[in-house]
């Protein structure tokens, strides 16, 4: 057998009909390179200015060439397989390119003015068309608003999820689940309008970080409930029974057995919920209002916030402001990224150990 496999496939004695000519391993990469080269060639010769057109031509060539070459060498079934594989690759690239270019764009534009000064100073007394100023007040505002929103919605969300999974049966649980579903679908601007009419127009409070945080917590709560619910459901019933069998009451079983077992996943869920609301700008626009100077008190008066800052700077419409907007966007992305990493770290650290 070893002797025959070294022969070219066509010369083999193929009594079983199980041998087939195959393209070499490097074929897909080669075809991709060729397609890219031809795509660039056509693009230049035809004078197409858009790189997107070049890429699309290359992608089309890649898919067609893979199919055609494979069909002539390997046969129909293999060609179909290659066709599907090359489509998957093209789809993958189409999905990744926007993400990669978004990060590239933000980093390359944002890094320009992002320095220690930018992170530690506010926009107080800065003329918007001139360079200078910083984002400190916005970072402070975002941390406070997101922090308060988390303080409001994490406990409520957690308790709701515990109720639904551990206690809830019957009509009330169904109603709660329904409301959580409805809340999941509330657009952020509507949450903002709701707090605006209730807190500011009806009750007469002023703009503040707190008002923004309340709207953010409306957006955050259903996410916390959903993710916590899933995590609690993952805790095996056997553990609850083991605890009951020791004469441990139900509430203590939840506190000391169920929650510790799922705390990693719950924390991850809360972190991801925070990441989701950190970039919300609509409620801040309505409720926090924006403020060029440092206001460290989230309970009184207009504050800044990162998404709001980005919006304002962009709206200024001059180079210096654009630079600041990009730098703030980079700070926001970094903040969310750090939260994600922390969440992963906690999940790994708290995961029940198996050795």
């Amino acid at each position, binding site marked *: 057998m070893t002797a025959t496999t070294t022969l070219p496939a066509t010369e083999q004695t193929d009594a079983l009909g199980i041998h087939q000519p195959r393209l070499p391993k490097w074929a897909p990469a080669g075809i991709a390179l060729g397609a890219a080269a031809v795509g660039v060639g056509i693009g230049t010769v035809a004078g197409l200015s858009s790189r997107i057109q070049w890429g699309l031509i290359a992608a089309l060539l890649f898919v067609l060439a893979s199919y055609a070459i494979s069909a002539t060498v390997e046969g129909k079934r293999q060609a179909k397989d290659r066709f599907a594989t090359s489509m998957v690759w093209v789809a993958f690239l189409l999905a990744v390119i926007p993400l990669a270019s978004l990060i590239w764009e933000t980093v390359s534009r944002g890094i320009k003015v992002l320095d220690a000064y930018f992170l530690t100073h506010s926009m107080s007394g800065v003329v918007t068309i001139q360079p200078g100023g910083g984002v400190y007040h916005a970072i402070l505002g975002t941390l406070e608003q997101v922090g308060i929103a988390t303080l409001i919605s994490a406990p409520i969300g957690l308790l709701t999820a515990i109720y639904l999974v551990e206690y809830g*049966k019957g009509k009330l649980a169904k109603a709660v689940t329904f409301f959580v579903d409805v809340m999941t679908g509330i657009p952020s601007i509507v949450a903002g309008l709701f707090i605006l009419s209730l807190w500011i127009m009806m009750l007469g409070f002023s703009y503040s970080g707190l008002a923004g945080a309340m709207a953010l917590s409306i957006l955050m709560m259903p996410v916390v409930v959903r993710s916590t619910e899933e995590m609690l459901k993952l805790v*095996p019933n*056997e*553990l609850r*029974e*083991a*605890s*009951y*069998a*020791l*004469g*441990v*009451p139900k509430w*203590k*079983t939840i506190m*000391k*057995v169920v929650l*510790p*077992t799922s705390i990693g996943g719950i924390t991850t869920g809360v972190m991801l919920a925070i990441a989701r609301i950190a970039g919300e700008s609509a409620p801040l626009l309505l409720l926090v209002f924006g403020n060029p100077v440092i206001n460290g008190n989230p309970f009184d008066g207009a504050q800044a916030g990162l998404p709001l800052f980005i919006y304002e700077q962009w709206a200024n419409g001059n180079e210096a402001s654009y630079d600041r907007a990009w730098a703030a966007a980079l700070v926001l992305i970094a903040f969310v990224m750090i939260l994600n990493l922390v969440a992963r770290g906690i999940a790994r650290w708290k995961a*029940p*150990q*198996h*050795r």
Partner: protein
Amino acid sequence: MAKRIDIGSLSAYYGKFKAIEDISMTVEPKSVTAFIGPSGCGKSTFLRTLNRMHEVAAGAHVEGKVMLDDEDLYAPGVDPVAVRRTVGMVFQRPNPFPTMSIYDNVAAGLKLNGRYKKSELDAVVEKSLKGANLWNEVKDRLNRPGSGLSGGQQQRLCIARAIAVEPQVLLMDEPCSALDPISTIAIEDLIGELKKKYTIVIVTHNMQQAARVSDRTAFFNLAAVGQPGKLIEIDDTERIFSNPSVQATEDYVSGRFG
């Protein structure tokens, strides 16, 4: 310490479904009573009525009496949580708490129910692990997670956890069915030790095991699927396996069905 259990016309339900019907028997103190019978005849259900774990399932309820010496476990005003401290339980699959160390697993019943001094806990943990024949294997790694032990060790850890709260009765639901033969022997030896102090009830699918470890054996059966399970007979283990008084028992223990 060990107590007698008197069960009087006990039926248990899951919602409308009657899982066991009209069971009466006596479980002698400081002895091992084995429950045998085909799958689904209600052995686990019956066992779980003995420490009020049955009612943990949604819609589950019980009719009849379970007397622990002279106290009816189902009398009004009896706290099921307190009952479970008196009647401990070991499950089919070893289920140590995954977030806790070996030490904390054994101490869990005490720690979760009150405040104890470290020295008290140390003593209880050592005594319970010794009682479960596990001390020598784990004494150097008490702070490692309990889930890192082998299946047989985990099950002995669960037994240590159950006896750490000093129950009067120990219920075991097929404690060896997820274990290899060597671990099974270890648990069976342990049961022989434990019966000096505790009243033990064990559900088993393994006839030889019932014959090896138990003093008395109860045979359960059900007329058909969907029908409630019933106690067919309970007698000294020797008699059940040599000369039972009911034909169905003989058929079952000799392997003719089930």
